[in-house]
């Protein structure tokens, strides 16, 4: 019970810190709008099909959601290191995973907000809508996508605690996922080897299901896509289990929780 309360408090604190942080507004509001604008201007050419335009409607929101969920988790830990609180929270009787659980959930909640400005911008600026939205399939796909983002963020977050330089190394992963997981265009346009890499990323399958739930036609194999995304997410969690044990130990060997 006290562990759940600790996680909840970490969630509340992460929300409070985001509410008062200007950087947070850039991440969930400004950057997704910019991506959505670029996407919609590029896709909104004469003769473009509405099935392509959904990449403009949802793409900016997806990028914002992913960025806040993933990068904010790592960036938050880097901030904790800079402000000297990383050691303080690490040395409490609450395991790191429980603290990061609250923090990542805080990021997910803010990340979801990214869909609001981008969808509003698409509708008001371009009269773009989701042409054949199946609400139930859309909601389930968004739920599966949330699970995928959560599992990646919670798995990779402890690496930021372990290495001071993790932020630079993992920053590239954020951008890679934009492309590999088909946030703004179908994965089918990628090179075969890139499609292979995309296949082991859970968001690829969830994003495919999400877009399919907004357009007519097919064939759409939602059950398979949800299952693969869910299975990959669980696999990430299994890795996380071992990773947290490793980080708890290695951070105490290297002393990298402190700035110097």
């Amino acid at each position, binding site marked *: 019970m006290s562990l759940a309360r600790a996680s909840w408090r970490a969630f509340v604190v992460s929300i409070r810190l985001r509410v008062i942080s200007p950087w947070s507004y850039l991440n969930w509001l400004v950057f997704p709008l910019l991506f959505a604008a670029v996407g919609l201007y590029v896709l909104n050419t004469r003769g473009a099909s509405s099935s392509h335009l959904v990449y403009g409607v949802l793409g900016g929101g997806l990028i914002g959601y992913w960025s806040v969920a993933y990068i904010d988790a790592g960036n938050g830990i880097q901030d904790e290191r800079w402000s000297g609180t990383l*050691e303080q929270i*690490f*040395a409490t009787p609450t395991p790191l995973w429980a603290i990061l659980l609250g923090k990542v959930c805080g990021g997910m909640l803010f990340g979801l907000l990214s869909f609001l400005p981008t969808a509003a911008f698409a509708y008001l600026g371009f009269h773009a809508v989701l042409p054949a939205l199946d609400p139930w399939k859309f909601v389930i796909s968004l739920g599966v996508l949330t699970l995928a983002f959560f599992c990646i963020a919670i798995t990779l977050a402890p690496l930021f605690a372990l290495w001071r330089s993790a932020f630079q190394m993992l920053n590239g992963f954020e951008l890679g996922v934009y492309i590999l997981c088909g946030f703004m265009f179908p994965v089918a346009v990628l090179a075969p080897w890139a499609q292979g890499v995309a296949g082991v990323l859970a968001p690829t399958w969830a994003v495919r299901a999400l877009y399919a739930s907004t357009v007519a036609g097919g064939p759409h194999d939602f059950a398979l896509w949800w299952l693969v995304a869910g299975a990959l997410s669980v696999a990430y969690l299994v890795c996380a289990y071992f990773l947290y044990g490793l980080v708890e130990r290695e951070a105490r060997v290297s002393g990298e929780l402190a700035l110097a």
Partner: protein
Amino acid sequence: MAVKAAIEARQLRKIYKTTRGVFRREKVEQVALRGVDLAIEPGELFGLLGPNGAGKTTMTKIFTTLLLPTSGTATVLGLDVVRDQWRMRRRIGFVFGGERGLYWRLSGLDNLRYFADLYRVPPEVTRKRIPELLERLGLAGRERDRVELYSRGMKQRLHLARGLLNDPEVLFLDEPTIGLDPVGARELRVIVRELADAGKTIFLTTHYMFEADAICDRIAVIKGGEIVAKGTPSSIKKVVQDQGVVEFEVVGMPAERVASLRALTGVRSVAVADHELAQVVTIHCSRPADVMTQLGLVLDGMSLEKVSSREPTLEDAYVQLIGESS
């Protein structure tokens, strides 16, 4: 039956492994602790003194489960720092000096609530304890202000409040008065002494000799990762008990005159420190009266001010133990 130590270290060693160089990276080992033995009794206020880089913070971090020793053993309340960290963390508190380590954009109250939950303190206890701590540490009435609006002294007291949230049996304080103004530092020392008098075991690291002299029951001096002296402040002072100190101010102190002073009978060391436009010369010697009478001969033609002779202090003992080079 012997009292079981509250904090104990046996042959404690810590080696940091790092790399240097850009293109040809070379592995480097940095020895921070070289086989430290230490035993601190329950209820004791123990001070660890040493220069920067001596190993004070490393030792504190090992005892607070933030670092693993490379070899040797360390226990707190009979719990091993390597294996029993989860049980130990509920029973210890720690405070690192300086302004970092708090969420500046949150209020003092939010900081305390957060850490109370991370320390798994039951909510009914938290509701009583936080107001008590705020009152005791002089933060009541300012708890809803953002920490960034606090003075340095208030931040340090908030640190201490955080360290006491779980009512720890053992409290580790790493240079808690660093950077505080004299009044703030004195207030904090009074609180620390009160905590020790209330039965808490306190492990304090500090640069300030008078601080250790004033509040610690026992002290140890660490240099280069090794304990070079251990005992009560008065027993440490005995290192220099057969010595006295002669001090004076002079404007311009040529090196050859310093050498002449060092050559005087009974002189153990001569230190020259700049003080505004003048230099303060401190001579540690076995017969201060003899040295004072010879000053006029050695420093003939120089104008000496504020010539005095005094008993050695803990700082003099510390300087002798650490060596003037540090």
